[in-house]
C-alpha cells in the first residue's frame, strides 16, 4: 500500500503543478488546489500508514546520475510526513480561495506550480535516504520557497526579504554540504546506511554536529540565524506562509534529528546543551521581538522563532539526557519536541491562514489599522482565537499539552548529577515560562487589537467574511488544535513509536493512558486534558444554566463607559504600540528603543496641539552586531576580488586555462 500512496502523492503534486501551467483563472486555481490537496492527503495517509504498521518503505533509483536517488520511509519520516500532510492539506484548501485576489495582479502560474513543487520537495525531503537526494531536495525546497516569497514582487521589501532568505539559506546549505561530505568519510555513494555504520573520531563527529547545527539552524530560524525568517515569511502569500512557518522550518528539526540521532547516533552532553541553550534563547528573544511588532504576519513569524526554540528545548534536553544515560527522560524530551512540532504546524498554520484572511478582507497587515473584525468576520475571528489560545499554551488546547511535556522534561533534568546541568535546568524552565507568559501577552495584543473594539481604518470597517474554502482550511486546523490538545494519551505513544522505529537509540516506550498515570523514572506529573476540557465545558455550561435560573436576565445596550465623554472613536482605543509599552519599558535594556516625538503646537498657545507624531523603533542589534560585520567583510572581499575583473576576454580565458592546469597538476600529483 505504501508505494501506491507515495506514487499518489507525487502524482497529485505533479498534476497540480502542471495544471497551474496549463490552466488559468478559476479552473486553474481549483486544479492546483485539488492536486495539492490530493497529494497532501496521500502524504498524510502514507505517514499514518507507516507509523501505524511500522512498515518501512524503500525506493531507490540508482540509475539516476551520480549516486542515484534513494528514498526510505522509517518511523521518523512517517511522523514528519504527517506534519507535512496536515499543514499542506489545510493550506491548499485555503489557497484556492485566497489566491483569487492574485488573479490578474501576480502570476498565478508561478504561484500554483511552485506551491506544488514545494509540497513535493517537502514530502521527498523527509524520505531522502542518501546525501544527494537530501541535498537536492533541500535546494529544490529552498528555491521553490524563494520563488513563492517573491510572489508579490512589486511590494516594498519583498525583494529584499527574498534576497536575505536566499543568502542565509545558501550559507546554511554550504554548511550542510560540508557536513555530509565529512559524514560520508570518503564513501562516494553517500547513502545514509553507510553513514550510520561509519566510525568517525569524536573530533570529526563534533565537526559534523556543528556544521549540521549551523545548516539546519538557519532553516529552523534559530537565533541568531533567524534574521531572514521574520522578513521572508510575512511577505509570502498567506497559505504559503502557513506552509513555510508550519512545515518548512520544521525541516531544520527533522534534519537535526536525522543527523544527530540517526546518522550519528547521539553524542556528548554538550551537543544537547548547545541545542538546549539555543532553544531557550530563541524562545525568549523570539517572543520578545514578536511583542514589538504590529505587522500581524511579522508577529507570527517571530513566534515561529519562539516555537522553534521550544521544540529545540525538548530535543536538546533529549540529546543531553541520552548522553547521561537517562533513556526514559531522553525519550520524553524528544517526544515533547516532536509533539510541539506537530502542534506548531497546526496552530501556526491556522494563525497564518487567519492573518491571511484578515489581509484578504482588509488589504493590510498593520494591526494599527485593524480592529472590530470580530463583528465583520466572526468565523475567522473564532478560528484565530482558537489558534491564539493554542499558541499561548492555554489548556486544554494542543500548545499546552506539548509545553507541559517540555516542562516535565526540564524538571526531570534535576536528576542529572552535574552542577552545570542542575543550574541550567531551572534557568531554562524560567526562560520557557517567561516566554510562554509573554506569548499570552502577545496574543492578547494580536487578537485584541486586530479583532476587537472599533475598526481603526475604513478598510477594516468595510471588511467582509472570507469565502467558504478559506474557512474550511482554517476549520480543519482548528479541529486539529483541539483534537491534538485533548488526546495526548494517543499522540504520546504514537510519537514513542516514531522514535523507537529509528532503532538507533535506546528508547523507552512511554504510555500516556487516559486514566492518567504517566510516569517516567524521576518525572512524575499527571494531567488529563480530556477530562479537563470536559470539566471546563461542564462548569461553564452549569454556570450559565444556574445564572439563567437564578439571576436577573435584563440586558441593555449602551455606550462604552469613558467618563461620560461624547462619542467614541477608534482614536480613543489602545493601540498595539501602547499595549506593548509596559513590556517595552521593562525590557528596555534589550530593545534599546529609539523614540522620536514631535508635537506641532498651535501658534497662539502651546496648550492646543495641532498634531503629534510619535515614532518608536526597536533596534535590531542582532543585525547590527552579527550581520553587518559579516556583510561588510564580504563586501570588502568582493571589492578585492573585483580587481581581477578587468573586462578583457583574454584575461578571463587565461584564468580558465590556469585553473585547468592547476587542477590537472593537483589531480595528477596529489596522491
Amino acid at each position, binding site marked *: 500500500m505504501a508505494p501506491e500512496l507515495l506514487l499518489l502523492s507525487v502524482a497529485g503534486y505533479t498534476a497540480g503543478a502542471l495544471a497551474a501551467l496549463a490552466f488559468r483563472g478559476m479552473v486553474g486555481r481549483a486544479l492546483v488546489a485539488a492536486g495539492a490537496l490530493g497529494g497532501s492527503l496521500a502524504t498524510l495517509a502514507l505517514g499514518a500508514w507507516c507509523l501505524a504498521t511500522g512498515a518501512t518503505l524503500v525506493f531507490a533509483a540508482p540509475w539516476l546520475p551520480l549516486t542515484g536517488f534513494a528514498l526510505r520511509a522509517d518511523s521518523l519520516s512517517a511522523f514528519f510526513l504527517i506534519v507535512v500532510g496536515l499543514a499542506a492539506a489545510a493550506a491548499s484548501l485555503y489557497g484556492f480561495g485566497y489566491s483569487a485576489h492574485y488573479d490578474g495582479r501576480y502570476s498565478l502560474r508561478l504561484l500554483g506550480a511552485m506551491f506544488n513543487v514545494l509540497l513535493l520537495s517537502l514530502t521527498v525531503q523527509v524520505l531522502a535516504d542518501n546525501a544527494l537526494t537530501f541535498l537536492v531536495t533541500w535546494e529544490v525546497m529552498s528555491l521553490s520557497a524563494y520563488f513563492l516569497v517573491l510572489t508579490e514582487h512589486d511590494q516594498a521589501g519583498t525583494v529584499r526579504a527574498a534576497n536575505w532568505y536566499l543568502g542565509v539559506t545558501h550559507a546554511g546549505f554550504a554548511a550542510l554540504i560540508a557536513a555530509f561530505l565529512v559524514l560520508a568519510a570518503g564513501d562516494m555513494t553517500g547513502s545514509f546506511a553507510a553513514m550510520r555504520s561509519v566510525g568517525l573520531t569524536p573530533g570529526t563527529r563534533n565537526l559534523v554536529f556543528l556544521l549540521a547545527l549551523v545548516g539546519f539552524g538557519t532553516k529552523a530560524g534559530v537565533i541568531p540565524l533567524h534574521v531572514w525568517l521574520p522578513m521572508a515569511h510575512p511577505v509570502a502569500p498567506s497559505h504559503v506562509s502557513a506552509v513555510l512557518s508550519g512545515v518548512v522550518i520544521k525541516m531544520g528539526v527533522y534534519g537535526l534529528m536525522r543527523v544527530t540521532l540517526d546518522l550519528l547516533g547521539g553524542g556528548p552532553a554538550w551537543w544537547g546543551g548547545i541545542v538546549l541553550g539555543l532553544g531557550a534563547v530563541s524562545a525568549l528573544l523570539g517572543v520578545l521581538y514578536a511583542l514589538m511588532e504590529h505587522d500581524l504576519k511579522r508577529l507570527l513569524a517571530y513566534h515561529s522563532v519562539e516555537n522553534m526554540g521550544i521544540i529545540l528545548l525538548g530535543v536538546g534536553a533529549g540529546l543531553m539526557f541520552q548522553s547521561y544515560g537517562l533513556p526514559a527522560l531522553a525519550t520524553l524530551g524528544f517526544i515533547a519536541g516532536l509533539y510541539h512540532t506537530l502542534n506548531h504546524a497546526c496552530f501556526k498554520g491556522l494563525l497564518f491562514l487567519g492573518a491571511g484572511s484578515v489581509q484578504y478582507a482588509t488589504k493590510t497587515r498593520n494591526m494599527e489599522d485593524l480592529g472590530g473584525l470580530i463583528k465583520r468576520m466572526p468565523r475567522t475571528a473564532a478560528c484565530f482565537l482558537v489558534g491564539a489560545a493554542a499558541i499561548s499554551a492555554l489548556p486544554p488546547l494542543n500548545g499546552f499539552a506539548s509545553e507541559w511535556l517540555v516542562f516535565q522534561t526540564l524538571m526531570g533534568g534535576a536528576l542529572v548529577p552535574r*552542577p*552545570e546541568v542542575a*543550574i541550567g535546568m531551572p534557568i531554562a524552565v524560567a526562560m520557557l515560562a517567561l516566554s510562554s507568559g509573554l506569548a499570552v501577552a502577545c496574543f492578547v495584543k494580536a487578537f485584541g487589537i486586530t479583532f476587537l473594539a472599533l475598526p481603526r481604518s475604513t478598510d477594516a470597517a468595510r471588511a467582509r467574511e472570507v469565502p467558504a474554502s478559506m474557512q474550511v482550511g482554517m476549520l480543519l486546523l482548528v479541529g486539529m488544535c483541539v483534537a491534538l490538545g485533548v488526546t495526548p494519551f494517543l499522540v504520546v505513544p504514537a510519537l514513542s513509536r516514531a522514535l523507537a522505529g529509528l532503532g538507533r537509540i535506546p528508547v523507552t516506550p512511554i504510555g500516556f493512558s487516559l486514566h492518567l498515570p504517566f510516569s517516567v523514572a524521576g518525572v512524575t506529573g499527571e494531567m488529563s486534558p480530556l477530562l479537563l476540557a470536559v470539566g471546563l465545558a461542564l462548569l461553564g455550561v452549569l454556570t450559565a444554566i444556574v445564572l439563567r435560573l437564578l439571576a436577573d436576565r435584563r440586558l441593555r445596550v449602551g455606550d462604552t463607559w469613558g467618563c461620560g465623554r461624547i462619542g467614541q472613536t477608534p482614536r480613543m482605543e489602545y493601540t498595539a504600540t501602547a499595549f506593548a509599552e509596559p513590556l517595552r519599558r*521593562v525590557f528596555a*535594556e534589550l530593545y534599546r528603543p529609539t523614540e522620536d516625538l514631535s508635537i506641532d503646537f498651535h501658534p497662539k498657545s502651546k496648550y492646543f496641539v495641532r498634531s503629534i507624531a510619535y515614532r518608536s523603533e526597536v533596534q535590531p542589534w542582532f543585525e547590527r552586531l552579527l550581520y553587518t560585520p559579516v556583510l561588510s567583510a564580504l563586501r570588502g572581499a568582493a571589492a578585492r576580488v573585483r580587481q581581477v575583473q578587468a573586462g578583457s576576454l583574454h584575461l578571463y580565458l587565461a584564468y580558465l586555462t590556469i585553473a585547468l592546469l592547476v587542477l590537472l597538476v593537483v589531480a595528477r600529483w596529489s596522491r
Partner: protein
Amino acid sequence: MDATFSQLAMLGSSLMLIFGLILLWRRRVPAYINAFTGQSVALAGVAGATGYFGTESELYWVAAFVLLLKGLVIPSLLRRMGRRFGSERELDPYVNTATSLLLAGLLVLFGYAVMRPLVVTSRLPTRASMALAMGLILVSLFVIVTRKKALTQVVGFLMLENGIALLAILGTYGIPLIVELGVFLDALLGFLVMQIFVYRIHETFETIDVEQLSRLRH
C-alpha cells in the same frame, strides 16, 4: 542531630543572603542599616548554633561579640551617619534594580558551582551552607561595584565582611578567638576610616555620590 544543624545553618545562611539582597532592592539608607543589623544577628545565630552543635565554646564568645559590635555598635554609628546624609537615596545605580537582582541570583548560582567540589568532598554538616556564604560574598562585592553612594558601599563592605566571617565559621568551626577578634577590630577600624572618608567626601562635594570622586583627577 547533624541534619537539624545542617538545616539551621542553611536557614541562617539563607537569611543572611536575603538580607544582602535587600541592599539591591531597597533604595533608602535606613533600610540598608536594618538589613545589616538583621544580617549580623543571623550571623550571631549561626555562630551560636555552630558553637552548640560543634561543641566549640569559644564560638559563643564570637556570637556575643558579633551581636554587640555588628548588631549594636556599628548600626548605631551607621544611623548617625545616615541621619546626616539620609536624604540621599540610591536612585541611579550603574545597574538597574531588576537586572541587579537577576545578576545576584546568577552570582549565587555561580557561587554554588564554585563551591561544588568542596561540598562534595567535605563531610561537615555545614558544607551545603558554604555555597550560600560564597554567594553572599559575591553579592556584596557586586553591591560595592555597582552602587554609587558611599554609604551603600560601606554597608556593602560590612556585609562582605559578614560573608567572610560566615564562611570562616562554617568552614572551620571558628578560627581561634584571638584571630577572630583581630578580624573584627580590623573591620571596625576599617569602618571608622571609611566613616571619616565619607564625611570628607561630603564636605568636599556636598554629596556622598562617589562618582564625584572622578573629578579629583583634574
